[in-house]
């Protein structure tokens, strides 16, 4: 009888400690972080009222005053075109990159990370210059692209 009590005790512990929630709470596919800097003072952020949309898509940002934007990259393609507009002047940025799929966890499955980010073409209407500060996009904690205006 005592043996059974021990056995059921272990069984109970094993069952109650089985599974945690099946929700994806980890960081998954990161977005591209673009930060805006002052062209005259390249160390300081400069806010800008901005519209942002990918080519032939809805706007992600609608006249928001920000110093950084987070935009998703297309995991199904190796390039994406973003349009950044302020005060009705539009600039176009053509990004290209390599995607790599990384397993995250049971509920999340796979995420994509991006490598070898390059800017193939860009217009300089309101943007003064562009610089890629991190060509590998693994998380959203640091800026990957710096825009001076």
């Amino acid at each position, binding site marked *: 009888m005592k043996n059974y009590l021990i056995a059921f005790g272990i069984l109970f512990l094993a069952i109650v400690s*089985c599974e945690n929630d099946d929700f994806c709470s980890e960081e*998954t596919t990161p977005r591209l972080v673009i930060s805006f800097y002052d062209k005259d003072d390249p160390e300081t952020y400069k806010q800008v009222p901005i519209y942002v949309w990918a080519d032939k898509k809805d706007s*992600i940002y609608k006249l928001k005053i920000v110093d950084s934007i987070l935009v*998703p990259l297309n995991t199904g393609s190796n390039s994406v075109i973003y349009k950044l507009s302020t005060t009705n002047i539009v600039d176009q940025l053509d990004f290209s990159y390599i995607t790599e*799929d990384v397993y995250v*966890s049971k509920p999340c499955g*796979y995420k994509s990370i991006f490598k070898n980010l390059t800017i193939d073409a860009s217009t300089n209407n309101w943007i003064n210059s562009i610089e890629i500060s991190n060509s590998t996009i693994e998380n959203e904690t640091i800026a990957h692209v710096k825009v001076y205006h």
Partner: protein
Amino acid sequence: MLKYIINSCFLLLSFYVTGQETQKKKTDSIVFKKNYGLRIGLDLSKPIISARDANFNGFEIVADYRLKKNFYLATELGYIDKTSKEDNYNFTTTGSYINLGINVNSFNNWLEMDNELYYGARYGFSSFSHTLNNYTVFQNGSLINSLSSAYFDPKTVSSNQKFSNLNAHWVALVLGMKVETFKNLYLGLSMNINKLISSKEPNNFKNLYIPGFNKVYATKSSVSFNYTISYRIPLYKK
């Protein structure tokens, strides 16, 4: 007066005296001898699940050998081919496994009955491979018009990538019962509470299912069941 009191004390004084030689233990004239031998059988649940579930294919052979009246050496051998579906990926696991261990019967049988209510321990080993059939990349949506949906269509890859030469070791606590329904024919059910010791994890994937071990929970533990029918090949009686 005192004399009478002292005398009556002596009268009430008593000694323990045995008037017999040591008594012989009575032995029951009828002794119910138990059948000893090799018991082999199969798990009934796995062929039934295989027939009903297109994503599962498996069988398991069980065997035990009675060493003492209430002590058995036990083993399970099996093969499983199972497709697991998660929210945004699915994979097929194929492999075989072996469990080795002991069972201890804790049920007191009446007369010639030979049923079991047992607990036991196992060591398990499995050799397997996974095939990642397809997956959809998890990408959080962007807030557009106050609605969160994927800005770009999420990428789905039919990779058919194979992760082979994987293995796992575990220990298990077993609780179960076996009932002799006909002479030497047993129906049984048991539950294994498994705890993973070590496993060879695939590169850029995870062992979420291990044949014999079952679904791997976050605590590296699992629960598995079997429902068996088995026959004891009687070798001798004791």
